[in-house]
């Protein structure tokens, strides 16, 4: 334990914790986005329900033979929670150190290589943290859902949840923040893990860019499509009305 504590006590150790948890979270959001794209998959002709709802059901049933209903899902959730907490706690600790390290700022501020992305990591991170909480309350628990939230009917929840104009707007802004966060974060992760080299550095930058762009486009497509009704599925006014009534 002493070694782990010593490791974590150093700034480099904390950074590595941020990098590893960041990696877990990035992999998760990529998977999450992949799942979200089921939104565009349409209705399953055989069952008459939306394929996204199938997918949501699958998330609960996967591995149930071994771990029971939603067992794997909960394990993933706990894992993600731990990752988020570690990511946030180390970020807070490091930020406090860094702010204390520069007690007085310069009269003239001049950046040469620090980007809006790298400089907004702390604030973007805080915003994303709040967003994640809102997002869970929105679509996982339904607590702050617009109206008519129903567990398991993911597609319908999305369609209704994105109706007020400010909801998709918030989501798109959040995804822009995520993209910015990852544009610096993914490259920074490679640097912190010590896997950059002059030859590979451009590759790492490139991966960061690709991840940021794909996630932004992929994630933003759903709220926009839902809001503007650009998607195949039971998005007819009558179906919508039925959902709202129910």
């Amino acid at each position: 334990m002493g070694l782990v504590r010593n490791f974590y006590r150093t700034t480099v150790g904390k950074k590595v914790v941020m990098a590893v948890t960041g990696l877990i979270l990035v992999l998760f959001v990529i998977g999450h986005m992949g799942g979200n794209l089921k939104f565009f998959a349409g209705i399953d002709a055989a069952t008459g329900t939306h394929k996204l709802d199938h997918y949501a059901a699958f998330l609960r049933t996967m591995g149930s033979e071994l771990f029971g209903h939603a067992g794997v899902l909960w394990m993933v959730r706990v894992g993600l929670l731990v990752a988020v907490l570690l990511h946030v706690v180390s970020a807070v600790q490091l930020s406090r150190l860094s702010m204390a390290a520069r007690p007085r700022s310069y009269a003239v501020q001049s950046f040469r290589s620090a980007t809006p992305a790298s400089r907004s990591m702390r604030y973007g991170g805080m915003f994303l943290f709040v967003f994640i909480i809102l997002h869970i309350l929105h679509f996982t628990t339904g607590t702050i859902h617009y109206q008519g939230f129903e567990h398991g009917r993911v597609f319908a929840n999305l369609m209704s949840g994105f109706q007020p104009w400010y909801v998709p707007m918030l989501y798109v802004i959040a995804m822009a923040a995520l993209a910015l966060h990852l544009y610096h974060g993914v490259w920074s992760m490679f640097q912190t893990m010590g896997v950059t080299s002059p030859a590979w550095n451009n590759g790492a930058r490139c991966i960061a860019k690709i991840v940021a762009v794909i996630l932004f486009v992929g994630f933003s497509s759903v709220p926009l499509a839902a809001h503007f009704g650009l998607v195949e599925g039971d998005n007819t006014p009558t179906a919508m009305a039925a959902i709202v009534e129910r």
Partner: protein
Amino acid sequence: MKLTLYVWRQKSAAQEGEFRRYDMQEVSPDSSFLEVLDLLNEQLILKGEEPIEFEHDCREGICGCCSMVINGRPHGPKKLHTTCQLHMRNFEDGATVYVEPWRAAAFPVVKDLVVDRSSFDRIIQSGGYISVNTGSAPEANSVPIGKEVIDTAMDAATCIGCGACVAACPNGSAALFTAAKISHLGLLAQGQPERYDRVLRMVDQMDKELFGSCTNHGECQEACPKGISIKYISMMNRDFIRATAARVMDPKGAMKAQ
């Protein structure tokens, strides 16, 4: 040329400082930035005012004494230059120039533009050496070292210990300084026996000195008058992770890097 200087004046570490304005006339574009301060100081002394204290010695960019931030940039606007190598032809006639000391908790101001950088010395003392006593060295050519390796080590060893990296870093981190020394020694065959101990000890000492943490902005490599790359920070991180892993696998350290 004319110049308006705003210079940070601070009587001592305990007292508050402030900017004071000085208007300079007839500055030669061929003079160096420090020579302008010399000139200003001569004028101040003759007026009976205390001259501006600033650290300087070799005035050719190698001793690492100069420690001023000029218009928000450590060592001024010109890349790969120290303040003492900066010439006035890099400024426009009539320019307004703010001159401040390095600002970092680990570099407390001593007076005016002079800061205390002994934290850097303590980082080196914590492990920035190869333990070889005088007289015990083997024949120099007995260990060949590839040219690319020695060049990469030299790129890191070129650090002058000025502290511009810390001054430029929005987090006040000393990662580049520490990483440069760790990488210089860690790349060489001679540095292998102590490689893992060294990185653990030096990172530990760096943290004890109130430096901030690296968030990979890259400002340090822009400010570094010797152009030291942040790839060395990556190398330091890698060695730190490996060293910890080696400690976990092998607490007695018999399987150190060789």
